[in-house]
């Protein structure tokens, strides 16, 4: 009995999954547990592993197409089996899938394989270059690695290899930049009380690792509770309120930016926020984030203070309406009651989706947040 490869549901509400790329091809021998294809939900890209040893067959969903979850996207045939019993992947309700419904079932007739070195084949697949389109300079016209590299529109220095995390980041930031009418509100706040708050919190056992980001998660959760309009999304011509306050934290990893989420941040103690933040940041850096770790965010904090950045404009993490960009805390001269004094100052930059939050509402939220940063008393838990 052929073993079906099923488009899985990675989230509770997920209805479809998109085939990003096939890592193995029709007719390939595969081993149970090896990655067959990459799929993407609206949050993450994950690899789907072979459910059994055997020959990959029935590969019909093309790269880029979406299919309903639960749909078989291929089968793995054991020795002697044929692709005949494969269920046709109906119903195909989604987009490009219609176009391929006519594709022949079962393994395609074996065409003459283009001569190419193993390295050329591998990098062509990685770079998305069609071998058939290339002129081979190797023996008998075989394509070698240099031919693939020459055909790749790379800068003089060659190409940097990127993984799925980077591609998701690239796609999502580009889409936000193009589709979301975003603007930035900026405000300098006095961080003296934030600093002393952090100092006192860290004296409590178990809280030694509380960071500025943890404090800001706590304060943003409170500000969002008071301004639910910012904790919302533009969806189909209406503003959808977030059910809970789930704060994403931008985490830089070697593979690219990821935004794991502290769920229901307004209900968590500072210690719990800190523990969760450390857990997801570590998982992010180790590449171990689960789908549920990155789903459901309603607001994002990006802190580049540790890199010495004074202030910056973050790109709205659509479909969220707002992202807070946090700079470093630096002693600066400020004029206070006619006197120039030195204070630890912090610049908060709030990027907003104008379809959800206009300037005045955004300013009110930022004013609340600034007030909480400057007077965090009462939130200490």
């Amino acid at each position, binding site marked *: 009995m052929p073993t079906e490869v099923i488009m899985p549901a990675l989230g509770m509400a997920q209805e479809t999954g998109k085939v990003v790329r096939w890592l193995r091809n029709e007719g390939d021998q595969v081993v149970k547990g090896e990655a067959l294809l990459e799929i993407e939900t609206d949050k993450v890209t994950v690899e789907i592993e072979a459910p059994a040893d055997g020959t990959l067959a029935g590969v019909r969903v093309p790269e880029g197409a979406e299919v309903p979850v639960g749909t078989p996207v291929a089968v793995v045939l054991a020795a002697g089996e044929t692709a005949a019993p494969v269920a046709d992947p109906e119903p195909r309700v989604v987009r490009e899938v219609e176009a391929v419904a006519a594709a022949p079932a079962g393994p395609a007739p074996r065409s003459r394989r283009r001569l190419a*070195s*193993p*390295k050329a084949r*591998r990098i062509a697949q990685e770079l998305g270059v069609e071998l058939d389109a290339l002129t081979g300079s*190797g023996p008998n016209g075989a394509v*070698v*690695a*240099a031919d693939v590299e020459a055909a790749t529109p790379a800068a003089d220095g060659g190409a940097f290899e990127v993984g799925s995390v980077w591609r998701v980041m690239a796609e999502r930031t580009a889409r936000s930049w193009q589709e979301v009418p975003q603007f930035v509100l900026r405000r300098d706040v006095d961080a003296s009380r934030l600093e002393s708050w952090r100092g006192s919190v860290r004296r409590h056992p178990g809280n030694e690792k509380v960071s500025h980001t943890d404090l800001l998660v706590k304060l943003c959760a409170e500000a969002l509770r008071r301004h639910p309009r910012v904790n919302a999304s533009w969806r189909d011509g209406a503003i959808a309120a977030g059910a809970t306050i789930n704060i994403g934290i931008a985490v830089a990893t070697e593979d690219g930016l990821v935004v794991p989420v502290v769920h229901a941040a307004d209900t968590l103690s500072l210690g719990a926020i800190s523990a969760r933040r450390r857990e997801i940041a570590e998982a992010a850096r180790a590449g171990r984030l689960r789908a549920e770790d990155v789903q459901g965010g309603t607001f994002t904090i990006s802190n580049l203070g540790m890199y010495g950045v004074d202030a910056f404009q973050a790109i709205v993490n659509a479909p969220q309406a707002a992202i807070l960009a946090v700079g470093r805390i630096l002693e600066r001269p400020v004029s206070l009651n006619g006197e120039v004094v030195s204070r630890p100052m912090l610049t908060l930059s709030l990027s907003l989706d104008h379809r959800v939050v206009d300037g005045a509402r955004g300013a009110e939220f930022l004013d609340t947040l600034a007030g909480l940063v400057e007077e965090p008393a009462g939130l200490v838990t």
Partner: protein
Amino acid sequence: MPELTFAQAVNQALAEELRRDDTVFVIGEDVAEAGTPFKVLAGLVDEFGPERVLDSPISEPGITGLGVGAAVTGMRPVVDIMFGDFLTLVMDQLANQAAKTHYMSGGKLKVPLTLRTTMGATRRSAAQHSQSLHAWVAHVPGLKVVLPSTPADAKGLLKTAIRDDNPVVFIEDKMDYAVKGEVPDGEYTIPFGVADVKREGEDVTIVATSSMVRVALAAAEQLETEGISAEVIDPRTLVPLDRDALIASAEKTGRAIVVDEGHQSYGASAELAAVIAERAFYSLDAPVRRLGAMDVPVPFSPPLEDETVPTPETVAAAARQLCGRT
């Protein structure tokens, strides 16, 4: 660092181990007064006496069997087999006794035997004194096989061989004995199973053993003038083999040549090439090439003999071909 010849480095290693450990002794044909036909052991009998540097009758199976027995009963014999061609005579002692005893005694017996012998053609010694038969012994589980290529490696590896509790076949290329090289001062050993990158490069990996390392380095010099950067790797021990080093280099360069003086068919070069083909396959931009001795008895005629073994020219030609520069 002092410069020593390969023969002096071997001599020094033996002298140091004879001094260090009373159970070490040397036995072989013409090893004492003559110091071997290659003068490798010259002077050892003067320092250590004829009871520790023993001239034997002409019976390779006999002295190897004596070595196995002495090793099992607590000595650390170094058996000298003048020509590697005579491995054929000692194969029963090596393959059926030395290699099996530890295993078949359930680990109760150890065979800390070192068998030194030679390999290599182009010495005008004809077909029965020119063979490189290291693949024969490398095929037998239980034997370690060492192929040093420099004086420094020879010294460090021979000391490791003598201290190893397993039978070790230590094979020196006759043509290397006069080659000089820097040898570190003082006491040192070199672990088995650690390859040495003799030259770093980017475009093609040349895995070479024994005297073929010199051939590969000369080829690399030539290739450099043509804009091809060759990396030369010496496994140093065939058993145990540093597979990871070969694979890492082949993955880096995408091209690999294996140069070994054994006959090319069914030889050590085949094993080394297979390791690379199996584990670095998706990084290879060209087939792995083997360069071994021609599959003929080594001719006595010098012009013909020279044709049978890899040379810097044939190695460089193979590298050019793999790099698409024909």
